[in-house]
């Protein structure tokens, strides 16, 4: 099996040309995956794990995906079995149908639901920056190990995903009175609102657990 031999697992990080890929690259590389950054010139994704990273704005990310044909390559990729699409932060938001960021922008539509702005609340600061607990949803297809329940991961965002189907939610996180979906899974499409690559040893463990899903 692939799972036992990490350096045979090909992991590609999609370069959206928006921001820092250094951390996610280093994290995957240090774990031992055969890691590369892929730009729009790569026409076919023959990787085992594809990472859709994310800091930046929803509409500039979508226009990059649409303009360069990257969108169709991602759609082709997720149709294959035994492949994992793992998306982080903005990357997770891109999976949904639409986002309220800058009016309304259409997303990849791989998961039903919308991306909404975090509501203003008294004494609660936005952007949400910091470490917060994840509460694991009882979901048969959860990719997050139960031992991570109520552990803290690093968040930095102003928008959150609101999936239509609760059985696709893998974890919830509280932000003041708002409870939002902090991890999602539909078949081989996975996402986290938090940054596992910035969440210390616990985050690295989550990334290295992806191999078990192949």
């Amino acid at each position: 099996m692939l799972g036992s031999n990490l350096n045979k697992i090909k992991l590609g990080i999609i370069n959206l040309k928006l921001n820092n890929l250094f951390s996610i690259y280093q994290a995957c590389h240090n774990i031992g995956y055969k890691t590369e950054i892929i730009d729009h010139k790569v026409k076919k994704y023959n990787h085992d794990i594809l990472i859709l990273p994310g800091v930046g704005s929803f509409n500039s990310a979508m226009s990059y995906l649409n303009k360069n044909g990257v969108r169709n390559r991602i759609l082709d990729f997720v149709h294959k079995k035994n492949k994992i699409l793992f998306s982080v932060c903005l990357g997770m938001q891109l999976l949904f149908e639409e986002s309220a960021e800058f009016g309304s922008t259409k997303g990849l539509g791989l998961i039903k639901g919308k991306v909404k702005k975090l509501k203003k609340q008294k004494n609660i600061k936005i952007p949400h920056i910091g470490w917060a607990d994840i509460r694991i949803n009882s979901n048969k297809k959860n990719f997050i190990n139960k031992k991570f329940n109520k552990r803290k991961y690093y968040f930095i965002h102003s928008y959150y995903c609101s999936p239509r189907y609760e059985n696709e939610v893998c974890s919830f996180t509280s932000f003041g009175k708002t409870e939002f979906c902090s991890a999602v899974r539909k078949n081989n499409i996975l996402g986290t609102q938090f940054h596992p690559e910035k969440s210390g040893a616990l985050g690295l463990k989550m990334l290295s657990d992806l191999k078990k899903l192949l």
Partner: protein
Amino acid sequence: MKKNFIRIIPKLDIKNGQLIKGINLEGLRILGDPFKFAQYYYKSLADEICYIDNVATLYGTNNLSSFVSRTARNIFIPLSVGGGIRTIEDIERMLKSGADKVCINSAAVNNINFLKKATRKFGSSTITVIIEYVKIGKKYFISKSTGRDLENINPLDWAKRVEDCGAGEIFLTSINNEGIKMGFDTKIIKEISKNVNIPVIAHGGAGNLQHIYEVIKNSNISGVALSGFLHYDIAHIFKYKRSNIGNFSYLENLKKKIKPANNLLKIKKFLKKKGLNVRI
């Protein structure tokens, strides 16, 4: 009452590749290799690391990117970097080197449009504004170039202004309290953190655990940045490399047997016991 999450952030001031620490941002002592300190803090559960190049604006340079890369290759928590950031290209270079957030001070004071442009391009959550302020008599000023130049602007007015211009976070240093270890300037920290809607990180003055607790309890901050409070305790652990310039007398006269008293975990356990939301 459920308190918001509090980040504990080691702040490392760097000059010519060495970790330094001063008093009121002056009288700089060399404490050693910043990377070793950062690694130590990562292992002891820092929530974030902040690197500031202290003389970058003064000398018109910024040399931190190789440090940033070395750190980001080994440390998997957020990394904020500042000092001498003047252009969009400077920000791009820092992000490419592995910074998660970029801190701006002088360049925003000199040209507020630069701040607007930066936050539009990189997103609010990538841009932190450093506000260093000083009280002279009864009047408050903000300062540029790490305390070297004063501007006749009130820190609260400036905080609101940078929020309006899209800053994602404010890193607030009281120069009067910095390095003195007599506690934080709770009055101004409270005023600013209650009057802006973006996160505020308080820095300057931690001398004991109670100081840290007090400033969190009495304000609406999202985190506390610590420098001397942490660095002095562990400076003796690491070997240091001499360079031609700088004040090495602190390291040369350092007693070998200091027991680290103020380590991060101890701070966090103390705060947790007081009912605060911290990561342990």
